């Protein structure tokens, strides 16, 4: 089970990012739990300066703008 956190205050792109993660995980058949982190202090605690950010299993892999599907696949399938 991959633990994915989407960091963002709830803007349109953050919602889109969460949907992209879910879609890519479904396509690859990887079980994921997606949690949206909307608290500003918590977001800043991850050390990013642009949203949406993506954290996979505790590691920040992306910050700022929509991710690319190919990158998402790489992050989700990495051990």
């Amino acid at each position, binding site marked *: 089970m991959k633990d994915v956190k989407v960091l963002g205050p709830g803007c349109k792109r953050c919602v889109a990012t969460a949907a992209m993660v879910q879609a890519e995980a479904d396509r690859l058949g990887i079980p994921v739990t997606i949690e949206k982190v909307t608290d*500003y202090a918590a977001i*800043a605690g991850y050390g990013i*300066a*642009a949203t949406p950010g993506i954290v996979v299993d505790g590691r920040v*892999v992306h910050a*700022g703008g929509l991710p690319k599907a190919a*990158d998402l696949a790489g992050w989700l399938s990495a051990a």
Partner: protein
Amino acid sequence: MTAATTPPAVCCAPAARPAAPAETRRPLVLAVLAVAVWCIIYWQLEPFSTWAVAQLPVAPGSHLKEALAFFIFDTPKVLMLLGLVVFLMGVVRSFFSPERTRAFLAGRHEGLGNVAAAGLGILTPFCSCSAVPLFVGFVSAGVPLGVTFSFLIASPMINEVALGLLFGLVGWQVAATYLAFGLSVAIVAGWVIGQLRLEGWLEAWVRDLRSSTVDLASRHLSAVDRIEAGLEALRDIFGRVWLWIILGIAAGAFIHGYVPAALLGQIMGSDHWWSVPAAVLIGVPIYSNAAGIIPVVEALLGKGAALGTVLAFMMAVTALSAPEMIILRKVLSPRLLAVFVAIVTIGIVAVGYLLNALFA
């Protein structure tokens, strides 16, 4: 700038995507072709719009005709210019990221740090919904408060949309003037806020937060990736601003067709001491992005309004807005927010007077 091209240094670069040679060259060729087609259409706009306006069943020389001519010529022109500028800047911006900018600015001394922050504010991609994470991310990582403010002031006020459209519609002299004086406001205002030592006026949760900076493993971007970044910027920014632009052009067309030059010259000319502060006070609560305000700037200048007054109005509209204040209130105490607005407003008014005196 070269940092972006260095190979990923850390452990966890995402797997590189395989790319066939034919596939890599095609987008490049397409991009060049698209720019060529753009140029051809752009050069035909003026004769085409003149012809289109002549077909309209409206009396020549009438107010309505003047307004329609402005609207019909400016709408495709502004949209095309914006498209090209946004695409090119999307490519340039793929070399920058807020995280990289922050790493560069952290621990900088004020002074030079303010200059660097204002300059990077132009180039670093950042949307207003990211303002709070960006502000908190900067301050908690050790970027001085005044330097952070220089970035925050420059970023919405001077951007590719503003400069590109000013350049295309009003001329390079005005664009260069706006760039130079906008940067000055951002640098000086940020420096002053830094000198006042107002860190204690941040909201408590921001003050107490100490975060590490994250080192994102960015994969090496190819030319095709950068073109894709440009197209993504095009889709994103165009989708957000096209309505503002049409509204702005409509306002500009109304001014161009109906507002008497004598009246406007009197109110927004350089004769009265109060015209600059009045323009700024009107501009602060107005929320529009740069793209929407520039057709208005074009029309005002065409009617004999003074350059300093008009540019001060534009700076006030873009740099200070009610929605941004509401967002920033989450991290700034009311006192600090008031100081920020006051210092930026004074800076903009000063620029207005200075330009009116220089270009009188």
